[in-house]
């Protein structure tokens, strides 16, 4: 048997083993860490913070589902907002002015921005580093009140499932292609014996 066939064959079998491990990792279900649901009107020019996580890490995923009547801009921002006690209730220390200031002065902190109108929407986000994360709803309309129904869930998993599965889907066939000549040679040799 040619040495290169053996080397490539064993590289192929290692690739198959790694892709099996990756597939197994992607099949382990996510654990829900927290969930926040809510609904209600959002006045023209108003904001609402629906999610705030001080440390979001690469093994966590934020899943957002929104149903909107009217117009709404959804921001995922890399920042941490503090709670404060005002007029007998706890609320975030963050208002429209703060949002506009952040958008103008620190556009790099906007991870994504989605403008939505009358419908159902779903997004998810997995960070690639440890970061702060805050989701803010903003009604950009001057006159129309938006009605929002939202469901924000924070889930934890071993690895980003789609990414890991995609790598496994590429690695496994490559491994099979590399390993097949070696397997055939081994089989032929055993048959001869």
């Amino acid at each position, binding site marked *: 048997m040619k040495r290169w066939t053996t080397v490539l064959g064993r590289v192929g079998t290692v690739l198959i083993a790694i892709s099996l491990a990756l597939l197994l990792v992607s099949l382990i279900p996510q654990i829900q860490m927290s969930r926040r649901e809510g609904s209600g009107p959002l006045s023209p020019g108003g904001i609402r913070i629906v999610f705030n996580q001080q440390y979001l890490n690469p093994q966590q995923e934020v899943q957002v589902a929104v149903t909107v009547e009217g117009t709404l801009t959804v921001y995922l921002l890399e920042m941490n907002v503090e709670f404060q006690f005002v007029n007998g209730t706890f609320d975030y220390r963050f208002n429209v002015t703060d949002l506009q200031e952040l958008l103008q002065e620190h556009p790099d902190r906007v991870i994504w921005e989605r403008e939505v109108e009358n419908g159902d929407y779903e997004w998810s986000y997995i960070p690639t580093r*440890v970061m702060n994360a805050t989701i803010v709803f903003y009604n950009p309309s001057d006159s129309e009140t938006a009605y929002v129904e939202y469901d924000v869930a924070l889930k934890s998993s071993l690895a980003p499932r789609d990414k890991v599965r995609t790598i496994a889907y590429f690695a496994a066939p490559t491994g099979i292609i590399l390993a097949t000549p070696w397997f055939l040679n081994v089989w032929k040799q055993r048959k001869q014996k």
Partner: protein
Amino acid sequence: MGKGKPFLEVLASAIHEDYRFPFLEIFAFLYALGTFVFASFGVSITAIGATSQAMATANEVIAYGAVSSILSLPLLILIILVFKNIAYGLGSDLEKGIIQTYFSYPLKRWGILTAKLLSALGVALLLFLGIQISALYILAPDIILPQLGTVFLTYAASLSYPLLIAGIMLLLTLKLRRGGISLVVGLVLYFAMSMVSGIATIFAIFTENPVSLQIISAISPSLVLQQYYIASLGDFWAPALSEVLLYTGVSYVIVAAVFALGYTYFSRRLNL
């Protein structure tokens, strides 16, 4: 026959013996699975609060925490593989007289030992580091790429002590010409270090004197690295990066010296 061909013959034979199908595949599977199962960014988050007293930045602490977390069980699996390769691979070659066959090749003795060590240590390390660093990159590219120095330093510091034991095992295997005893000694030495460092840590905390930890760091620099990044033992010892690099360098000089002894013994003293 050129000089390269007999070397490749010995290397191929060693790899064939050390990684019979499906051992290599099982280890690759365990490294890949273990990396994702043990990866944790939570430990480093609690450590971020300690960075005011530690010398490292928050991002370095996160990278260090992530690498440390994936080193736990997968490192033990690597150590078992390397110890098995050195003790049983080389040991059985000596016992069965296969090494004498290699001596008839037009290849110097150090070349034969290099081929055996490349298979026993090199392939195992390549597989381990390749899978772990790739998995970390899949998980958190924005942590790993900017902190590659921290990642490699953590691996270098963590692998130094296992490599030292591998060197001691090589010497023992060559001296005794069998692998069983050296495998037991290697495992005892590996687990003894956790006990010794525990005693040294208690001693250092009570006396507020880091000398005992500094002595251990010369052979196991992961201790000084841990103190540099998360300062978990208190503020009586705040090593700078240069100190960490010095301890890591010293530990590798010791490792190199032990392997050099092994090479000298194999080349000049081993009578078969």
